[in-house]
Each structure stands twice: as C-alpha cells, then as structure tokens.
C-alpha cells in the first residue's frame, strides 16, 4: 500500500512558505532593531541574515506560530550579542552618534549636542548585555519581564543590567556636562 511520498515535499514547502512569510513581515523591524543594537547598518544586515539562517535551521523548535516574534527576536538578539562580544575592541560609537545627529539636528546649543554625543558614545561603550537591555527597554519599550523572555535572562538580572547600564550612561552624561561646563 503506497503512500503519497509527495507529502514530504509538501511539508517542506509549507515550512518554507511559512518561514518566508513570517520573516518577510518582520524583516524591516528586525533589521532596525539589529541596527540599533549594533549601531552599524552594514553589520546589522549580516546579523539579521545570520539570525534568519539560524531560525530556519531551528524551525522545528518553534512550536507555536504566534510566538514567532519572541522566538525570532531572541535569536536575533543572541546573534547581535555574539557580534558585540566579538568586537569589544571596536565600538562603532561614531556611527551611532552620526546617525543621531543626521536624523535630528535641532540646533539647541553646543552643550546639548555634546551631551547627546556623549550619551550615544556611552551607549556604544556599554557592556553587550547592558546595551541590549537598554535598547530593548528604551527603543522597543519592553518591560523587564519582556526583556527577560527575549534574552533568556532572569527578570532580576535584566533589572540589574538596566540599572547598571543607566548608571554608566548617567556617569558618562555627568562627565560630559562637567567637561562642557568647564570649557565655558
């Protein structure tokens, strides 16, 4: 009694279509998130692609299509974290700062610009896990619980990362303010 072996191909095809559709719908937002985390659109492109490859290879572990956003988001964040850790000696702070000023030149004074520049620099120099927590909280506006789910860390750990990340940013901001104030 022969069975339709074509079904295996149909299954693979259905998977491919589901993967393509789900990733296509979210690709732009994922690419933007990777860009914010990495501060480098070129590297973000590679990171998003590599995350998608990993997602396809792990497609069988996605048990619920409704969980795709969190599932793929976690893969993407992990990919970005790995890249941040590998390039610890090369923080592309200038890229982040440049993008900020290109996008919003308000002309609100030298000190304000300097402070933002310092803040952008400080974001780029954060520890990878702190930086990711800050981005997920202030860019995606995720709660600590949601960040914990996205990163696989405990909620307490996320709160700690947010605390120390903000502390580092504030310190950098205060240092910049003192420097700018001293120049005046």
């Amino acid at each position: 009694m022969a069975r339709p072996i074509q079904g295996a191909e149909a299954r693979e095809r259905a998977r491919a279509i589901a993967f393509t559709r789900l990733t296509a719908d979210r690709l732009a937002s994922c690419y933007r998130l990777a860009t914010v985390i990495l501060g480098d659109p070129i590297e973000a492109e590679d990171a998003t692609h590599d995350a998608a490859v990993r997602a396809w290879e792990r497609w069988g572990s996605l048990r619920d299509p409704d969980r795709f956003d969190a599932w793929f988001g976690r893969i993407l964040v992990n990919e970005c974290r790995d890249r941040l850790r590998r390039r610890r000696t090369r923080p592309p702070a200038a890229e982040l700062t440049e993008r900020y000023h290109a996008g919003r030149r308000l002309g609100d004074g030298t000190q304000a610009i300097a402070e933002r520049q310092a803040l952008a620099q400080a974001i780029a120099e954060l520890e990878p896990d702190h930086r990711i927590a800050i981005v997920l909280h202030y860019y995606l506006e995720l709660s600590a619980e949601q960040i914990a789910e996205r990163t696989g860390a405990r909620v307490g750990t996320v709160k700690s990362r947010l605390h120390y990340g903000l502390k580092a940013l504030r310190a950098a901001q205060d240092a910049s303010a003192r420097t700018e104030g001293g120049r005046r």
Partner: protein
Amino acid sequence: MSDERLDRELGEILRAAADVELPARLADRVASIPSRRSQSAASRGAIGGARTRLPIGSMALVGVVILALVWGVPRLAPGFAPFGAATACGAGPTPRPPVTVKSGPTPTTLPATPSPTGPVGPTPTQAPGYFEPAGSMTTSRAGATATLLLDGRVLIVGGSSGAGYPTASAELYDPETCSFSATGSMPAPRANYTATPLTDGRVLIAGGFDGFTNSLATDLLYDPTTGAFRATGSMTSPRSNPSATLLGDGRVLIAGGEGVSPNHEVDLASAEIYDPKTGRFTPTGSMGTARVGAATAPLPGGKILFVGGVSTACTAAGCDDRPASAAEVYDPATGTFSPTGSLLAGWASSATALKDGRVLVLGAIRNLPIPVLPIMRPQAELYDPKTGKFTMTGGHQTPVGMNATLLPDGRVLVLGSFDAANGGDTVSAAVLYDPTTGTFAPTGSMAVARSGPTVTLLRDGRVLVAGGAGPRGGDVPGPPLDSAELFVP
C-alpha cells in the same frame, strides 16, 4: 541631566539610529534561505542542536536529476502530451501526437547493474491504455490523499492548496457522474497524514502535521453517510508521515513517522494499533528501525511488509537523513516486527502487493562508479515473502516511479516520473509493469504533467489521477493542480 530627560534622550538617540531602510538585498537573501539550506542540509546535517530534514521528495528528485545528467531518461517520456487542463469526463482519450518510444541507451559511463531475475532487453512495445479527462477538483491539491469508499466514490482530502499551504478541505469524486463535489472539511489543515479505509466504510485520518511545525497525535474519522469528519481517539505519540495499514481483522496499524521531543523532531520506531470498535489506540511492538515515510504492503497470511522510508543518523557533527534499506515484517498475530531481507536499492518510494504474493518495490539505488559522486538511478525490486529476499526486476526500462497502482489484470500502473533530462521536471508519461515478464512498458500519457497526484483504482478498473504538482520552476515545486484524468487500461 534629569531622569526624565535621560529617558527622552535615550529614546530619541535609539529611534534615530533605527532610521534605516531595509536593504532589498537582505530581503532577497532571507527569502532564499529555505531553498539554499535545504540543498545543503542533506550532507551537513543540522546546526546548533536542531536539524533540518531534507524532504523525501527532494531526495528522490536530487537522485533523479543526477541520474539524468549521467543517463538521461528519454525512454521515460514517450512523446510530449499537450498541456492544458482536462475539460470533460469520459470524453475518450486525450488527443496527443503519435507516441515515439525511444530505446533507453545502455549507459556508457556507468555499467548496468546486472539483473539476476528480471529480463533485460530491448524496449517493450507500447502497452495499451490511455488517459481521458476527468474534470477538475473543487480545489487544487498536491500531496493529498485519495481513498476509495465502499460506494465507489473517492474521498480526496487535504494536500497543499493553491497557496502552497495545507488545506483542511475535502471533496468527493463520483465516477458515475464524473464530477467532484465538496464534502465536509477537517477541523484544521493538516498534511503528511494517512487516510485508511475502514471495513465499515469510514476513513481514518491519522497523524500528520499542522502545516506549521507540529506533528499531530489527534485523529479523525470521515463518515461518508454524513459527509463529516469527527475526532476519534488520539495516538499515543504524535506522528507526522507515519505508515498506516489496514489489518485483516479491521484494525489499523500505524507505525513510525516523525514525533516530537522538546526541541526537535525525532524519528519513531514505535507502532500502535487503532481499533475502530473502541476508537482507541494501543501500543504494539516497535520496528527495529525508526522510519519516516516507509512504504507498506500486505503479505499473504495477513503480515505486513515495511520497507524503505528515511531514518536519521545523528553524530556530534549533526544529523543526516538516510534511506532505511532494511525491511521488516509485522505479524498481527504476535504484534511484533521481524527483520527480513534488505533492499538492494538505497531507498524505496512505493511497495505494491502483486497478485502472486510478491511485492513490487520502486526506488533508486546509489550507484558508485565514482566514489565521490552520489549517483542514483531508478531501480525496481521484487520481494518474495517465501524467501524473504529482494531481487531486481524491470531491467533498463525501470521508471522513476512515485506512484504505483495494482490493476485488476495484475499489472502495475506507475506514474509520477520525472523527466530528468529536462531539469528534473515532471512528465506526463506512464508505464505499466507486467509481473509475468518482469518488464516495464510505456503506455498512454497524461494530458498534464504532474508530480505526486492522488492515484486511485476505481471499481470499474479505471484509475483516477487527480491533482499533484505541475512542472517545477527550478528548485521550486510546481503549483498544485486541480485537474484530474482517468487511466483506462
């Protein structure tokens, strides 16, 4: 800087950094991932603890395409049938150009595998038989199941619909009116399930997957008297692509398939029995080899032959899907599987019980004249239950068949060939296997080239061929078809 201002500044900086356009090349790269990764997965296995399974159909296709590059199979395509959807039922044979049967060339670069039992000789003459239009299904379907009901109608369920997604819909073909009509739908789409006719007229829909990622344990019963599907008991294990066989006592044996573990698929060796009287599944003996997509055939005395399928071998480097060449026999009396002979071929796509008790197994063998090249060529074998051994048959005319149907006169209709000489696309050709001579002969061609249609022997001896995938576009499977044809022997 105040906390409020810091929050605001952080948000502005990060949102400004996100002001980027999605590069078109990234979208293209991501969209091509499934096809690129599937092509490489067979040799690499999976990465990162999970695995990507090369579809069985693709395995077959890869083998066939490689075959074409070395041999070419013009003998599988006796002439070109005109394309076009069937438009009427019972309108006689579809007009087509005169058939030119080309003799299959004896390979010069690859030595022919000796055939110990099957005659090898010149191409047989054209066998009688033709295809006629049988109308169109209500829905295009590829990879659907078709089941002959006791009243002579054919239940066609599921498959991939026009968008490529599994469909929950079902329909009936009535040979008396030569028409298709919708019937009740399954509660949800599913694919890679089995459809088994029960002795009471109902049809058991077992296992499968939900069209996304999940193997299913839930099962359905279709009742022709109500035209509805309803839930029945659940299997002890979720199974996608299992094998289901009606036993002589009316129970159904369901074995193997893909199950699930917490994070990945797992091939199953376990089996279970469905009892229509109680609607329950109970475990039975396990196979010696975990198999996905095995072919089965009833043997004299009520035993069941399990042959082929894919079994996954995992090492630290990853997992590879490998054809399961060892065959097994299930004995309902003892509820156990026993090893029997092994396939000479690497994999099997179908197993068809012949009238004399032997089983025709179509598949392919991995020929290794050049060790580094995985060259596969089609092979047909006969399993003899008396000796428990496989022997070759068919000789050089062996087709790459994906569907085999026993006809009332004892011959076997084989469809679903690929035109390997034309980039591995589907062809419309059909061939007939004659057990008395051990040879394949071309017969009439379908009006539409199709891969993986449903093939159902009707009570009047004709064969309904419905749906399937149309010609492929490179690596992309062809679109599901809604047309149907009838083979008249």
